[in-house]
């Protein structure tokens, strides 16, 4: 349960514009914002089961239109900045997944009607992993991924 506070599930009803940039993890306690915390999704141990629990399906189509901004190598695995930009219209949700985390779903943003497809947050990563963005728009699910390396560091030239 403690884990939940480190992750994000935000509803986009606060504004009609871009959601999420300011309201990132840590500024608000997710449960305060939440109508209903989707615990099954955030506790799921695999990417597919998290998506099933969150959206009722894990049938995603990969899309090169989604852009993920995240470092190639994390400066600090405990706070990895990730932002997702998606050009689709009628976006319902944007979810961020760290594939190799014990519980992969790290954030899910529910966007308000007409919101631009942009979210930004910081996620925790235990080890090197693909960061996957899943965008649900017009009833379909699209995804893109980017590898973020988590390393012990040291030994630089």
């Amino acid at each position, binding site marked *: 349960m403690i884990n939940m506070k480190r992750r994000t599930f935000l509803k986009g009803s606060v504004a009609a514009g871009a959601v999420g940039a300011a309201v990132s993890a840590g500024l608000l306690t997710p449960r305060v914002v939440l109508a209903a915390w989707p615990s099954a999704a955030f506790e799921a141990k695999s990417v597919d089961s998290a998506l099933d629990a969150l959206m009722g399906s894990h049938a995603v189509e990969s899309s090169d239109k989604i852009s993920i901004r995240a*470092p*190639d*190598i*994390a*400066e*600090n695995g405990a706070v990895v*900045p990730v932002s997702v930009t998606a050009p689709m219209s009628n976006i319902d949700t944007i979810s961020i997944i760290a594939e190799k985390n014990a519980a992969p779903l790290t954030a899910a943003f529910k966007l308000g009607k007409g919101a631009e497809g942009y979210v930004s947050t910081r996620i925790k990563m235990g080890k*090197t992993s693909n960061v996957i963005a899943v965008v649900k728009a017009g009833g379909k699910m699209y995804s893109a991924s980017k590898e973020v*390396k988590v*390393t*012990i*560091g*040291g*030994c*630089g*030239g």
Partner: protein
Amino acid sequence: MNISRREFLQMLAVASASGMSLSACESDKSSAPAGSKSAASPSDPYEIPGFGNVSLLHYTDCHAQLLPIYFREPSINLGVGPMKGRPPHLVGDSFLSYYGIKPGSPEAHAFTYLNYVEAAQQLGKVGGFAHLSTLIKKVRAQRPGALLLDGGDTWQGSGTSYWTNAQDMVDAQKLLGVDIMTPHWEMTFGADRVMEIVNNDFKDNIEFLAQNVFDNEWGEQVFKPYVIREINNVPVAIIGQAFPYTPIANPRFMVPDWSFGIRDEHMQQVVNEAREKGAQVVVVLSHNGMDVDLKMASRVTGIDAILGGHTHDAIPRPTEVKNSGGVTLVTNAGSNSKFLGVLDLDVGDGKIRDYRYRLLPVFSNLLEADPEMAAYIDKVRAPYKDKLDEKLAVTDEVLYRRGNFNGTFDQVICDALMEVQDAPVAFSPGFRWGVSVMPGEAITFDHVMTQTAITYPTVTRTNMTGSRIKQVLEDVADNLFNKDPYYQQGGDMVRVGGLKYAIDPNGEIGSRITDMELDGKPLDPNKEYPVAGWASVAQPLDGKPIWDLVSEYLRAKKTISKIDLNTPQLKGVGSNPGLATDS
């Protein structure tokens, strides 16, 4: 014995007759008119006529070496994947034939490890700020308006820079006439000290540029990303690129509030902005490391040249990288003030029409010491002189560090760690700085400091399981041999004492390291082993600094001989131009 200046010049003259001279390391483009190759007079190989109207002088990674030193270039610098056999991953004969350098010439000595000891004893030391200063003045005299760019790793790497909190190097940079710099190891003096120098010592004097350092809280730029300077009425933009992985390769706690990274997209924005403001030439002063520079040059458009450092590669000729906007030149200028890069551009009608590039080796015996700089260096070293000059032991073998795996000086450090810390295994960082010591020479405390002077020098002794040890080796190997340069950090493999292992550089993370053995027995993944080390980046530690431990060991040994170099068994490498054939 060093040969005389006259003999040295004769050697150069002979080399020159066969097509080589110091200045023949220039890159004449095929379009250059016949006979335009500068005819270096044997009387002074450093008299190099100017070319064009915009000149940039570049040195990088001097690691605070104020005095002339010996520095052996690597006999192993493996390139994997698309980097195999491509600059900078060439050593020895492969390097010479790629660049058309005559074997046995002074240039061959400067750029490769070949016949190292004999050639070094003949040709003498290299670098030194007093000699570099003389060379810079000579080159500048023929290039009015030329800028002097310092690629970083200037403040760290000597006893005096450590004890003066980098002040010795800051004042030396000002005396040398540095116009612009970008950082890496500078950051290990801590964010406060960096800002103090930038806002006071460097104010109105030296620009400290970094387009890729942002404040964590607000995402604002910490340093100026670029400047535009007029050189002979040509607006020239210089953009700074700090070492992207500073908070990972070096302690995060030194710069807790700053975020780095490669940041291609922001680089593109900065290039575009500089062009919009009228820059006719855009140059990046980079501390990326050469493989990263080459990839960046293929992705970002509108950069005329990337003058790079960090990986300590001395590259005589620029690599011309094509991208969707044109061609970007990538140069890398070596280390330890051993080289001065000279880029001459002929700019007309708003663009570069032609260029010349030379990477000049700084042979200290061929250049008079600049009196003002020499006096400054004497003054700054005086309070520490007795300490620095202490002869700790004599070495029978050449000591050096540079190379993908343990060098002989690393081996001495690992042996010292295992013996003094009473541990069967030692780890020592794969830094690329640290000078060489000739056979028969005394190892001084000064030498030890060139190998160890960092601001987090505490020695450690940690119990690690066999599986944790493997994980460390895998992690560091991936930082060195990842097939995507953007995931490389630019050091060499961690130096390992005691433990034997095999490595397949072409493998993937988790599968490169095999056959780990200690005292003839396979390493038990579940058993804990004491591991001695230093330079922990995790948190500040109190305790004995590594240089004291190594000094104790050397004083007790008195003589260093028969060094048993613990290098791993290489797998899957075969013939590789980055691997010496005789090693």
